[in-house]
C-alpha cells in the first residue's frame, strides 16, 4: 500500500469519527504530507523537492502513549503513524480507549495489522520503538523522555492551556461558540478554554455564556466525575460565592442541584486555571493583556478569538499562543496544525538524498 492508498483508506475509516477528528478527507492528508514533507509520495520513493532528490523514511515502529480523557488526541496520533506507514504500538489507559479500538476495526487488514494495543506498562515497547509520542502531564512526558534511548525520536506533548478572547461582539454572537469550545470533551483537552476574556460588558457576556452552556448540557450531558473532581468544582464555586458575598467583583452561574456546569465572572483580569469539567471563567480584557495572561504563557496553546481577523490574530499570537483560531473552532485544528508550534509529521521522518546530476557536482569542482 503506497502513501496515497493509505491516505484514502485512513480517511474512509475516519469518517465515523468526525465528531472527534473534525472533517477528514484523503486530500487533507495529502496536503498535510505536501506541506510537511514536500511531496505526497516522498515516503514511497525519491521525489524532486526544490533542487534536490529526497526520500523520507518513516519510523519502523512508533510507540504512542495516550490519555483516556482525550480520545481525539489518541486518534490523531494513530493517524499520523498510519499515514507514515509505520507499525504502531499504542499504550492505552487501563480502561482501554473504545474510540481508538473502533477506529482501527474500520481500517483495511493491511493497516489494521500495523496497530497493536496494550494496556500494560510500555517498557517492552519502549525498547522496540524508533519513535515515541507521549501525551500527558509534564511529569509524564519527562518520565518517558528519560527512558528514551538517544537514537529514538521523542515527541512529548505536555500540559497546555487555552483561552478565548472576545475583542468585539456587541450582540454576543460568539457566546454559543465559546460554550461549545468549553463543553466539548468536558473541557479536558489542551485546546479547551479555561477562560474567556471579553472586552465589552464581560459580566453580561458571562450570563449569556451560562445560558448557552446550559443549553449544550441539555443535549450533551457531562460525564460522571470522580469525588476529587467534584470536590474541586465545589471549591471553585464556594470560593466564587464567598467572594461575591463579600463584595468582590465576582458573579456565579451554576447548574441547579448538580455540578454539570459553572460559569464564574471574575472582574480580576489575572488568569487562573479552571478546575475544568465545564467550569469556565469570564474576565474583562485589559487594554494590554500581556501581564494578565503571564501565568498561562509558558504553556499556552490556543487562543480563540472573535472576530477572527488578522489584526486580532496578531495580538493573540503576540501573547504567546502557538495557534490562533475562531471561537467555536478550538477543538477542530486542521491536520496541518503545528501542534505546540512544531510540525507533527516532519520530526518523525529521516531523509535519504540522491544526487543524480554528477556533472553539476564535477562542474563545481572544475570551477575551483
Amino acid at each position: 500500500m503506497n502513501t496515497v492508498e493509505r491516505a484514502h483508506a485512513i480517511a474512509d475509516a475516519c469518517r465515523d469519527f468526525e465528531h472527534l477528528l473534525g472533517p477528514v478527507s484523503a486530500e487533507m492528508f495529502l496536503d498535510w504530507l505536501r506541506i510537511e514533507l514536500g511531496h505526497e509520495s516522498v515516503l514511497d520513493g525519491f521525489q524532486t523537492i526544490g533542487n534536490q532528490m529526497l526520500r523520507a523514511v518513516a519510523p519502523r515502529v512508533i510507540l504512542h502513549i495516550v490519555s483516556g480523557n482525550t480520545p481525539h488526541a489518541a486518534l490523531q496520533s494513530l493517524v499520523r503513524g498510519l499515514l507514515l506507514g509505520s507499525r504502531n504500538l499504542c499504550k492505552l489507559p487501563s480502561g482501554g480507549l473504545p474510540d481508538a479500538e473502533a477506529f482501527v476495526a474500520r481500517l483495511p487488514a493491511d493497516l489494521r495489522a500495523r496497530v497493536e494495543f496494550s494496556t500494560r506498562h510500555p517498557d517492552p515497547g519502549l525498547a522496540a520503538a524508533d519513535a515515541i509520542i507521549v501525551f500527558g502531564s509534564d511529569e509524564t512526558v519527562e518520565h518517558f523522555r528519560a527512558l528514551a534511548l538517544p537514537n529514538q525520536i521523542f515527541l512529548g506533548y505536555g500540559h497546555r492551556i487555552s483561552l478565548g478572547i472576545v475583542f468585539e461582539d456587541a450582540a454576543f454572537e460568539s457566546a454559543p461558540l465559546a460554550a461549545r469550545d468549553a463543553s466539548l470533551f468536558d473541557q479536558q483537552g489542551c485546546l479547551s478554554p479555561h477562560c474567556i476574556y471579553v472586552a465589552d460588558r464581560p459580566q453580561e457576556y458571562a450570563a449569556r455564556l451560562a445560558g448557552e452552556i446550559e443549553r449544550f448540557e441539555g443535549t450533551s450531558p457531562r460525564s460522571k466525575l470522580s469525588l476529587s473532581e467534584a470536590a474541586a468544582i465545589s471549591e471553585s464555586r464556594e470560593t466564587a460565592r464567598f467572594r461575591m458575598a463579600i463584595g468582590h467583583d465576582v458573579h456565579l452561574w451554576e447548574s441547579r442541584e448538580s455540578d454539570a456546569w459553572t460559569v464564574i465572572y471574575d472582574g480580576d483580569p489575572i488568569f487562573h486555571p479552571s478546575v475544568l469539567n465545564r467550569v469556565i471563567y469570564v474576565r474583562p480584557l485589559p487594554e494590554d493583556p500581556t501581564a494578565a495572561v503571564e501565568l498561562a504563557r509558558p504553556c499556552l496553546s490556543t487562543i480563540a478569538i472573535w472576530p477572527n481577523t488578522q489584526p486580532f490574530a496578531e495580538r493573540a499570537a503576540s501573547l504567546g499562543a502557538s495557534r490562533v483560531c475562531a471561537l467555536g473552532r478550538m477543538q477542530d485544528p486542521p491536520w496541518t496544525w503545528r501542534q505546540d508550534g512544531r510540525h507533527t509529521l516532519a520530526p518523525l521522518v529521516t531523509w535519504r538524498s540522491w544526487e543524480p546530476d554528477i556533472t553539476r557536482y564535477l562542474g563545481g569542482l572544475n570551477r575551483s
Partner: protein
Amino acid sequence: MTRNFEELENLLSAAIAAGEPGRFDDLALEVYRYQREYNPPYDQYCRLLGAGDSPAGWREIPALLQAAFKYAALRSFPAAKEIAAFHTSGTTGADRGVHHFSSLRLYDEAVLRGWDLLGLQPLPQIILIAHPSDAPHSSLSHMMGTLKARAANAEQHWCINTHGQLDLDRLRDLVDEFSRRGQPVMLLGTALAFLHWFEALEGSSLALPIGSLAFETGGYKGSGRTLSKASLYAMFQKRLGLAPDDIINEYGMTELSSQCYTRGLDRPHTAPPWVRTIAVNPATGREVADGETGLLQIYDLANLGSVFAIQTRDLAIRRGADFELLGRDPAALPRGCSRAADVMLSATS
C-alpha cells in the same frame, strides 16, 4: 440575647474542660448567632445562602470554605483587639490564609485538653518543628510551644535551626543521650521532617528507649514528595524501632483551633468532644452515609473568634462520629490532557 465574647469564651472554656458534649447544639447555635452578628464576611456569606438565624441544629449551620481565609479577615471581634494571627503555608502572600485571634485561651485549652484525651504519660519532647520565636505565625509551632505544659519536667528540645533546617547533629546527640539514660521520649514533627531525617540517616538506625512515642502531622505539601502512611510508619519502625501503635497522627489546620487524632494504622481520626465532623457529597452538599466518602466539614467550638463551621479540602470516609482521612488526591484532580496518563504511570511504576 447574644452573649458577649468573654461570656461565650467562659462557657466554651468550661465545656472544653469538662469534655462534655451534652450541650453541643446549644453552644453551637449561640456561637453561630454570635458570629453572624460580629463576623461581617461570614454573615454576608450566610445571607447569600439564605441561611436563617435559628438553624435546627449544628448540622444546619453553613460551613465556610477553608480557602475563604485567604480572601477576608474572618474576625468575630474588632480588629483592634487582635493579639495573634496564624498564617497558612503558601508560596506568595496572595495565596495565604490568615486565622486571627483576640485571645488564645480557647486555642491553648483545646490543644492541652485534646492532648490529655490521648491518655499519654508525660515524656521529654524532641521537636522537629520551628520554635515559636522563629515562626510566630505558625499555628503548629504555637501548638508545640503550648505542649510544653505536657512535657515531663517541661523538658523540650527544639531541633529545627533558625534557618528552618533540621539540626541532624543535635537530633543524634539527643537520641543518644536519652538512650544512655534509658529515658523514653516523645518525638514531634511533620511527616516531611521525619522523612528528611530518615533519609539523612542513610540506612543506619537509632535505638529509642522502650516507651518512646512519635507525633506526626501534615503531609508533604509543596515538597513534591508523596509517601503512603504505611511506608512512613515502616521507616519509623526501621530507623527508630517505633511500632505503628507508638505513632500518633494529628489532623489539624491553621483555620481550626482544635485537633483530631488517630494512633497507628487503619484507624479513623477522632475529634474531641467540643468538635463535630461530617462528610458531605461535594456535588450536592448533602451528608454522606456511614462508610461513604465525602468532603470533610469540621465544626469546632474553639473557633469562637473566627468561624465555627469549616468546609475543608479533604476527602474522608465517614466512620460513625469519626472519619478516615483520604486527603486531597492530587493525581485525581483534573489537569487537562494529563490525568489518565498520570494514573497509568502511578499505577505501574
